[in-house]
C-alpha cells in the first residue's frame, strides 16, 4: 500500500511539474500575474508530493518490505537501522529519487524565499526548474521505478553492497546531490534571463547565494567522498582520478569560476554573457556527471548498450537540456546588453584570469574523462587515462592560478596596481621563501619540487592573511582600532580569506602526503612487530567477532612512539555472508594532522596475516582545506549584503534597451 501511494505521489508530482513548466511561462509572456503565481503553489505542492514519495521509500526500507524489488535487492532484515535508511540512496532507483527530491527542495526554496524576485523572473525560473523536474520524473517512472513489486515476495533481501555499509553513505551522496542539483537554480536563472532578454547586476545578486550554497555542499560532498574512499577502500589513496570522481570535480571547477564571474557582474555589470554561459555549463556538467555515473557508460561503452533504455533516456535528457540551453544562448545572448570592457590589470581582470584557468583546468579534466570513451567508440581501442595524465595537465594549470590568487583581492576595481600589490605581498613572499629554504635544508637531497609546492601553499595562506591585515590596517593603526575594524569587515571578505587559505592548506596536505608517505607491507604473526617512521607497532592477537550481518576478524595492534605506549589500533576484515564478499576496515590513529593507517590482507596457513601500515604526515589537511573553503563560503553566504535583498533592478536603464 505504501509503495503504491509513493508511486502515485510521484505521478502527481509529475503532473504538477507539467503544469508548472507551462502555465507560469505563458503568464510571464502575457504579463498575467495570476498565471505567474501558479508557479509558487505548484512548486511547493510538488515538494510535498516528492517528499511523501521519498518518505514512502524510506519507510519501505526501514520496514524491510521485501515484496518491493528495490528493497529486496538492496536490503537485509539484519542490517543496522542507519544502513537501512542510507541504503535507500545506495542504489540506482533510490538515488534518482533523492536527486528529484533535492531538485524539488530547491524549487520549493525559491518559491518560499523568492518573494523579492520580480514576479516574471520567478515565474520563468520556476518554469525552467519544472522542465528539468518533469524530465527526471519521467525518467524515474519509465525506466527506474523504485516502487515495483515482486509477484512472489522472498523472505530475505540480498543485502546492500558491503562497501556501502558505512556512515559515509549517509553523508556523501546527499551532500554531492545538494551540490549538483543546487546548480540547477543558477541554470534556471540563466535560462530565465535569456528568455526574458534582460539581465542586470541585480540578477547576479539573486543568483549568487544559490550558487554559493550549491558550491558549499559540492565542496563538502567531494571532500567527504575522498575521505570515505581513503578509509574504506583500504589502501590509503584519497583521489584516484576515477571518472566518477572527475564527474563531480568538473561541476566544482566550473561552479567556482561561476562564483567569481558573478562577483564581477554584480559589482561592475560586466562579463554578463560569460556568466550566463558559465551557469549553463556548470549545470550541464552536473547533468553529464549524473549521466556518466548512472548510465553505466563509464565502465564500458558496451555496458551502456546492454541496458539501453536508461542510458538512452539520460542521454536524451542531456542532449535536450544542454543542446537546448546552448542554442537558446547562441540565439539570445546577442540580445543581452553587453557589459563594459575593463582594464586587464584590475580586480575584474584578476577574476577573469581565475575564470580562464579554472575553465581550462575543467576542460582538461573533461578531455581526460571522455577521451577514452570517444576512442573506444571510434576505434575500439581500450585505454585508461589515469593519474599521470592529470598530473601533467591539471597541476601546471593550477600553479599559475595559485600564484595569482593572493594578488586578486589586493587589486582595486577598475584600475589595479600590480607593483603595489606585490609590495604588500612582500611579507607573504618572504614567509614562503623561508618555508622553502627550511624544508629544503631539512630534506636535503629529497624531492626538489615538494618544498616549492609547500612554499606556494604557504604563500597562498599568508596572502589571504595579508588581505585581511591590509583591510583592517593591522600594524598601521592602533590594535584596538584594527580589532574594531575587523569586526566591522564584511563577512564576505572573511569568507574570501578563509576559502583562499583553504586551497593553500589542502595543497600542503596533498604535497606532504604524496611526498613523505611511508609504508610497511608485510606479513606478521601474533606478537611480532614492525617499525615505521619512528613508531613501533606490535600485533598482539587476532580475534573473531560476530557482527549484525557479518563475521569480523579483528587484529589488535599496540602502538608506541620512542618506547612510550600510544594506544591500540584494531583494523579488521569483515565478511558478509549474504553477498559472499568482504571489506577491509582500516584502523586510523590520528596525531595532530598526521595519521597512522593499518589495513589487513589475507591470513596465510601458518597464522600470519598480511598487513599494510602507512604513516601519512599531515594527511588530514587535505580535507581540512575544503572544510575551510566551505566555512568561508558559509561566512560569505551570511553576509548582510546577500540577506537584505537585492536593489531594485535598474528600471531607468530599461528604456535604453531598445534592442531587446
Amino acid at each position, binding site marked *: 500500500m505504501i509503495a503504491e501511494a509513493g508511486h502515485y505521489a510521484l505521478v502527481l508530482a509529475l503532473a504538477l511539474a507539467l503544469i508548472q513548466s507551462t502555465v507560469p511561462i505563458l503568464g510571464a509572456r502575457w504579463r498575467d500575474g495570476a498565471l505567474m503565481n501558479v508557479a509558487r503553489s505548484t512548486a511547493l505542492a510538488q515538494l510535498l508530493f516528492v517528499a511523501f514519495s521519498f518518505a514512502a521509500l524510506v519507510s519501505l526500507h526501514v520496514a524491510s518490505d521485501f515484496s518491493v524489488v528495490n528493497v529486496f535487492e538492496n536490503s537485509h532484515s539484519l542490517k543496522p537501522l542507519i544502513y537501512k535508511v542510507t541504503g535507500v540512496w545506495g542504489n540506482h532507483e533510490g538515488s534518482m529519487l533523492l536527486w528529484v527530491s533535492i531538485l524539488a527542495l530547491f524549487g520549493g526554496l525559491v518559491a518560499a524565499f523568492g518573494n523579492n524576485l520580480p514576479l516574471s523572473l520567478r515565474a520563468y525560473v520556476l518554469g525552467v526548474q519544472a522542465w528539468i523536474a518533469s524530465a527526471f520524473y519521467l525518467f524515474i517512472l519509465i525506466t527506474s521505478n523504485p516502487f515495483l513489486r515482486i509477484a512472489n515476495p522472498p523472505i530475505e533481501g540480498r543485502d546492500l553492497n558491503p562497501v556501502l555499509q558505512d556512515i559515509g553513505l549517509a553523508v556523501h551522496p546527499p551532500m554531492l546531490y545538494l551540490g549538483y542539483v543546487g546548480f540547477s537554480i543558477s541554470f534556471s536563472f540563466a535560462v530565465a534571463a535569456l528568455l526574458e532578454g534582460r539581465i542586470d547586476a541585480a540578477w547576479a545578486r539573486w543568483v549568487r547565494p544559490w550558487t554559493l550554497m550549491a558550491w558549499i555542499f559540492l565542496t563538502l560532498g567531494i571532500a567527504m*567522498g575522498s575521505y570515505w574512499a581513503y578509509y574504506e577502500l583500504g589502501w590509503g589513496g584519497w583521489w584516484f582520478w576515477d571518472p*566518477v570522481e572527475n564527474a563531480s570535480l568538473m561541476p566544482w571547477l566550473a561552479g567556482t569560476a561561476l562564483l567569481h564571474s558573478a562577483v564581477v557582474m554584480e559589482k561592475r555589470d560586466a562579463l554578463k554573457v560569460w556568466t550566463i554561459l558559465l551557469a549553463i555549463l556548470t549545470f550541464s556538467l552536473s547533468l553529464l556527471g549524473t549521466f556518466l555515473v548512472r548510465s553505466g557508460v563509464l565502465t*564500458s561503452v558496451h555496458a551502456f548498450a546492454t541496458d539501453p533504455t536508461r542510458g538512452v533516456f539520460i542521454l536524451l535528457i542531456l542532449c535536450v537540456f544542454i543542446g537546448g540551453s546552448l542554442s537558446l544562448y547562441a540565439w539570445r545572448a546577442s540580445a543581452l546588453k553587453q557589459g563594459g570592457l575593463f582594464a586587464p590589470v584590475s580586480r575584474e581582470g584578476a577574476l577573469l584570469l581565475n575564470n580562464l584557468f579554472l575553465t581550462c583546468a575543467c576542460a582538461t579534466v573533461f578531455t581526460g574523462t571522455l*577521451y577514452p570513451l570517444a576512442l573506444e567508440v571510434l576505434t575500439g581501442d581500450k585505454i585508461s587515462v589515469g593519474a599521470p595524465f592529470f598530473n601533467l595537465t591539471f597541476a*601546471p*594549470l593550477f600553479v599559475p592560478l595559485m600564484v595569482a590568487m593572493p594578488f586578486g583581492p589586493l587589486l582595486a576595481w577598475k584600475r589595479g596596481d600590480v607593483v603595489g600589490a606585490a609590495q604588500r605581498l612582500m611579507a607573504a613572499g618572504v614567509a614562503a621563501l623561508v618555508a622553502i629554504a627550511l624544508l629544503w635544508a631539512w630534506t636535503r637531497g629529497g624531492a626538489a619540487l615538494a618544498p616549492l609546492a609547500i612554499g606556494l601553499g604557504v604563500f597562498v595562506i599568508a596572502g589571504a592573511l595579508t588581505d585581511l591585515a591590509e583591510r583592517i590596517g593591522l600594524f598601521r593603526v592602533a590594535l584596538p582600532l584594527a580589532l574594531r575594524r575587523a569586526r566591522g569587515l564584511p563577512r564576505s571578505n572573511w569568507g574570501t580569506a578563509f576559502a583562499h587559505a583553504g586551497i593553500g592548506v589542502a595543497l600542503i596536505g596533498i604535497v606532504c602526503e604524496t611526498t613523505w608517505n611511508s609504508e610497511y607491507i608485510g606479513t606478521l604473526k601474533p606478537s611480532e612487530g614492525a617499525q615505521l617512521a619512528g613508531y613501533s607497532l606490535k600485533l598482539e592477537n587476532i580475534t573473531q567477532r560476530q557482527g549484525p550481518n557479518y563475521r569480523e576478524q579483528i587484529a589488535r595492534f599496540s602502538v608506541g612512539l620512542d618506547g612510550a605506549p600510544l594506544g591500540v589500533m584494531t583494523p579488521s576484515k569483515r565478511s558478509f555472508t549474504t553477498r559472499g*564478499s568482504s571489506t577491509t576496515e582500516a584502523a586510523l590513529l590520528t596525531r595532530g594532522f598526521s595519521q597512522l593507517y593499518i589495513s589487513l590482507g589475507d591470513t596465510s596457513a601458518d597464522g600470519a596475516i598480511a598487513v599494510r601500515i602507512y604513516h601519512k604526515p599531515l594527511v588530514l589537511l587535505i580535507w581540512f582545506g575544503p572544510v575551510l573553503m566551505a566555512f568561508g563560503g558559509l561566512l560569505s553566504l551570511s553576509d548582510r549584503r546577500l540577506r537584505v535583498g537585492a536593489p531594485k533592478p535598474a528600471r531607468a536603464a530599461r528604456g535604453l534597451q531598445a534592442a531587446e
Partner: protein
Amino acid sequence: MTRRQRRLTMIGGSLAVLALAAALVLNALRDSIVFFSTPSMAAEKHIPAGKRFRLGGLVENGSLQRGDNLAVSFTVSDGGARLPVTYKGILPDLFREGQGVVAEGAIDAAGVFRADTVLAKHDETYMPKDVADALKKQGHWKDDYDKKPAMPAPQPSQGASR
C-alpha cells in the same frame, strides 16, 4: 590603454592560456595513457618488453602461488592465450581464482608480466567490464557472469592494491 588595446590584451591572454592547456593535454595524451590488452591480444600485437599496459583476463584456477614476503604469482588467461604474472604486495579483497582481474605493469625479458598494480575494479559479479567485453568478443563468455549489471554507487567503488 585604449579600448582596442584592452580587447587585444584580453583576447591574447585568453588564447595563450587556452594554447597552454591544449599543449599540456596533447603532450600528456602522447605519454601517459595506458592501453588495455588480454593475453591473446598481447601475443597478437607483440607488445615489446618494458612497455606498460593493462592486462585483463581470468585468474586461472590453481595457478595462484604465494612466495615469501607477499610475493605472488598467478596466470591470467582469456581462453586463447595465457600469461604468467608476478606481483608483490597485498591482493585486493575481491581477488579470486577463476575470477576476472586487471593488472597494470609490463612484460619483462623472460616474458613474465610484472604487475605493480592489481585492480579489483568490478562489481559483485566479480567481472571487470573491460575483461567481460574482451571475453565476449572472443567468445569465451560464461553466462553466469552476465547477471544483472551492478548499480554504480555514487562513489568510487573500486579497490586496488599497489
